[in-house]
């Protein structure tokens, strides 16, 4: 049987055997939570608590600013000990609320369960927004924005992303195995809100247990389970759409332009919590893995748990890590240290040893065209990168630099180890900056 997939892409070793068989464990509370106020794409939220204030679990501690923004909530009950700049996964110091847990883990009394049959679609979207639900695959785009497309854009197909194509990560996989009901309830809610006719859950063929389980659960429901060929970056929105529907999102367009919406399976679960129980997004599943950690695990963590605590829970380090990566190895961010907290988008903590770090010097491009074959969106990465590096922004734009999804496939295959994605990313930032400055003047 030939499974569906998209054009281009790569096959990195998936390394999921480190943690795929480990059941989800609840991570104990750390001594201190650092909850960053910027955890999503869009305007960061603003602290609405003061130092010394007692907060309950789930209470709002940062309020949203603008439409593409969501509030931030206390991960447990305790005292606010500081509102200050702290190291953030993005690499800089950014405002965060620091909470010292009181150990009671007491829920806020304001959070009430609701009966979905009595809620309108708009009320559900509002609940999702208030709960601070964001895309949990990594991009952390506010979910309520995706749930409220403009009326002229009709969503026909709703796709749930159970692909988890990043090597090493198994968080979504474990969630699908252990909490299928939560995911499917969320799927039903989303289908109701968007009015989609077709609902598909895309799962890569390297998770046969999850596929079997969902096929069992979805029998007799409108939800279709679609096994997909194993290939990176199938979990990227546009690639998943191409794999499932065969349709291509136009350059510069959004999935809704072709009547498709995509949500991660963990996001669906978070939506269930938000709508049915009124619970905000304060915890998620996170894979702690890599050759430098003693005991790889899938943990249910609270948002704001410092990385040092995760390392401790997983039995400590085998040796000093060479690289600390939040997220997967293809698109994750390297960290300066373990004092950084987890955020809503943290799907994994990957610790590589110094010997695992790719440190080959760059050599000249030999135009072997591997990057072109690997590129899932059919760009000429070597050309775009070359233009970007020389600040030839007009040429880079002409070669569709702005369409790059930064999946890293090109850099992965490049025999000359040219930092192609980084160069394109640099070019994209420069193009945006130029556009902005020309709009101002």
């Amino acid at each position, binding site marked *: 049987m030939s499974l569906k997939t998209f054009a281009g892409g790569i096959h990195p070793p998936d390394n999921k055997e480190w943690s795929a068989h480990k059941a989800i464990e609840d991570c104990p509370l750390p001594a201190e939570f650092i909850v960053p106020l910027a955890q999503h794409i869009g305007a960061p939220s603003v602290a609405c608590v003061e130092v010394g204030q007692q907060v309950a679990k789930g209470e709002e501690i940062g309020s949203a600013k603008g439409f593409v923004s969501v509030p931030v909530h206390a991960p447990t009950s305790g005292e606010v000990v500081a509102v200050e700049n702290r190291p953030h996964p993005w*690499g*800089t110091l950014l405002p965060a609320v620091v909470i010292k847990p009181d150990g009671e883990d007491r829920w806020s009394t304001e959070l009430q369960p609701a009966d979905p049959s009595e809620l309108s679609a708009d009320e559900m979207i509002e609940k999702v927004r208030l709960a601070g639900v964001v895309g949990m695959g990594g991009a952390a785009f506010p979910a309520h924005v995706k749930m409220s497309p403009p009326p002229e854009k009709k969503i026909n197909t709703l796709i749930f992303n159970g692909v988890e194509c990043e090597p090493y990560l198994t968080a979504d996989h474990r969630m699908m195995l252990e909490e299928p009901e939560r995911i499917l309830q969320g799927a039903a809610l989303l289908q109701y809100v968007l009015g989609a006719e077709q609902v598909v859950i895309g799962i890569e063929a390297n998770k046969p247990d999850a596929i079997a389980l969902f096929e069992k659960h979805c029998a007799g429901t409108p939800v279709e389970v679609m096994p997909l060929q194993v290939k990176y970056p199938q979990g990227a929105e546009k690639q998943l759409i191409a794999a499932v529907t065969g349709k291509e999102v136009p350059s510069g367009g959004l999935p809704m332009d072709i009547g498709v919406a995509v949500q991660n399976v963990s996001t669906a679960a978070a939506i269930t919590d938000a709508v049915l129980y009124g619970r905000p997004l304060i915890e998620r599943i996170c894979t702690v893995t890599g050759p430098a950690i003693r005991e790889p695990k899938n943990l249910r963590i609270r948002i704001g748990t410092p990385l040092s605590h995760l390392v401790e829970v997983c039995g400590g380090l085998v040796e000093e890590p060479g690289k600390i990566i939040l997220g997967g190895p293809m698109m994750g961010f*390297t*960290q*300066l240290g373990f004092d950084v907290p987890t955020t809503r988008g943290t799907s994994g903590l990957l610790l590589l040893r110094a010997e695992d*770090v*790719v*440190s080959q010097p*760059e050599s000249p491009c030999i135009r072997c065209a591997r990057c072109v074959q690997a590129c899932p969106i059919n760009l000429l990465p070597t050309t775009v990168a070359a233009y970007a*590096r020389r600040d030839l922004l007009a040429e880079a734009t002409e070669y569709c630099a702005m369409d790059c999804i930064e999946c890293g496939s090109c850099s992965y295959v490049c025999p000359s180890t040219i*930092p192609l994605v*980084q*160069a394109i*990313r*640099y070019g994209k*930032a*420069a193009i945006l900056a130029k556009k902005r400055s020309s709009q101002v003047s």
Partner: protein
Amino acid sequence: MLAAILSLGCIGLIAAVALGFAAKKFAVEVDPRELAALEVLPGANCGACGFPGCGGYAKALVAGSIDLNQCPPGGADTVAKLANILGVEASAAAREIAVVLCQGDNRKAQVKYHYLGLEDCTAAQRIADGPKVCPGGCVGLGSCLRACPFDAIEMTADGLAVISREKCTGCRKCVAVCPRKVIRMTPYESVVHVLCNSHDKGALVRKYCQVGCIGCNICKKTIPDAYKIENFLAEVVYEQDAEAAEAISKCPTKCILDFSVAYPDGSAQLPAVTDKPHAA
């Protein structure tokens, strides 16, 4: 013979009449500045500017879509004349050159991580604010060097950009490209500079850099006119820096330097470039 003269004369006459007629009949208003600019340009139509000929370049100049310095054959003279014609600020002002206000190379300034990837300061700056602890100092990946059209910038072995006083033409390309804004335009006559760009408090600066300004005020106390201190960072007041050099020996972190004596890389001042053939 006569036939030759006559027939060639006739052809010439016809051509002349036709051209003359066309010149009247099909006259098109041309910006006088464009004609003047064309007049000044060398007229070699060499295409070095990227336009098909001097006419195209002149047109672009008047439209303001291109810099004045795109004509290598014309040289500095042409640029001056063009500036005159186009009413752009003539570079009659005092000569300014760019200076990297930092001495914190990889040995003197603390590095917080090993950077791997694109050799570019802006790209590195995007990863945890650059590999050095100091938020203001030279990133050291040579973006300015690559931006410099005059080969005036060198990177020292320890990763610090140093700009040659003689080769710098003051084009400001490096200033534009530096993500740290550590490159500053200074009067050519001023040779004494405070080579630090960190506004952090003294104690913090001491932690991450051996040669950073700690804002101790000693230089200002020594020569009050020549220095000013803002936000824990001393700066030379270039308008009145005649005696600035006297404070050099007093500076506890040795972050004031006299470029007429030595360069930040430790080399003696490079000899003036008179012995090298200069590309005119």
